């Protein structure tokens, strides 16, 4: 923040105010408040149950996709599934899923040592949230089958 500005020179407010630039994040603050109220209105138990149901459904669905292998089989799994597909690179998968409106992450996921430990070069990773539904999972599985057909 300034103290005074002219064409000839500027002077600054005293610290800490001199380091506070521009308009505070007012819109973002209000938005965060609305988001927190929305999440609390649903409740974390309901969100967890929803994500668990989706994850179980997704694991069943993905098991039917030719050449697909889910990475890891933990007793407890959050709404996140990493997978590989024989003969199709994760980046090609991610680009084509994206073209069908499905956003995933592909690559080493900032975890190169783990990739090496698993003997993998890269994976594709789909994750589910409170806004995801079973139609999205169906679209994911169906698009993956088409991607496999395209490349192999």
């Amino acid at each position, binding site marked *: 923040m300034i103290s005074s500005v002219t064409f000839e020179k500027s002077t600054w407010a005293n610290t800490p105010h001199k380091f506070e630039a521009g308009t505070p994040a007012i819109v973002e603050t209000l938005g965060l408040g609305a988001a927190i109220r929305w999440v609390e209105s649903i409740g974390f138990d309901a969100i967890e149950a929803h994500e668990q149901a989706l994850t179980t459904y997704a694991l069943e669905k993905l098991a039917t996709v030719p050449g697909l292998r889910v990475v890891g089989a933990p007793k407890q799994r959050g709404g996140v599934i990493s997978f590989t597909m024989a003969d199709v*690179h994760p*980046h090609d998968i991610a680009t*084509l899923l994206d073209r069908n409106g499905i956003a995933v992450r592909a*690559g080493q996921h900032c975890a*190169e040592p783990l990739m090496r430990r698993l003997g993998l070069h890269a994976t594709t990773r789909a994750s589910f949230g409170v806004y995801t539904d079973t139609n999205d999972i169906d679209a994911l599985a169906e698009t993956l089958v088409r991607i496999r057909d*395209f490349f192999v």
Partner: protein
Amino acid sequence: MNSLAQDLYDRQIVERARNPLHAGDLPEPDLQGEGRNPLCGDRTRLDIALQGHHISQIRHRTRGCALCTAAADMLAERLSGCSVEEARAVGARFSAMLVAQDAPAQTIVQGAEEQRNDPLEGMPSLGVMEPLTAVRFHKARIRCVELPWVALKEALAHVRV
């Protein structure tokens, strides 16, 4: 899927990725270079044989996506027989194409003056690499097709022409 993939994954790219024509090693390469992308784990190694100042043969070992593998294979084909200078010029043209804005295609009505100002004038053609040009509309994938050129740059780093 064809409709989804059509513009980016040209049939020639998919075919190259599936069955590369120039994959492998050279027994006694004159030059070697490697390109790595730490974000995705992809890697290309080039073995290059020289005859004087000309590239007589290139082989690549690529661990990467379809675009990266096809780009490496097309590089090997396009640059075989080129002088080192020409190889660099093809690379410069390829780089220029990857950052090119969506300029209207050259049409026959464009005047001679405009053609004189064409920055690509006099640069070598992309030839077999032409299908890769669609990547410029997919920013996240540009690194994939550049990786073999990173390897080439390393291989040619100490070659003076």
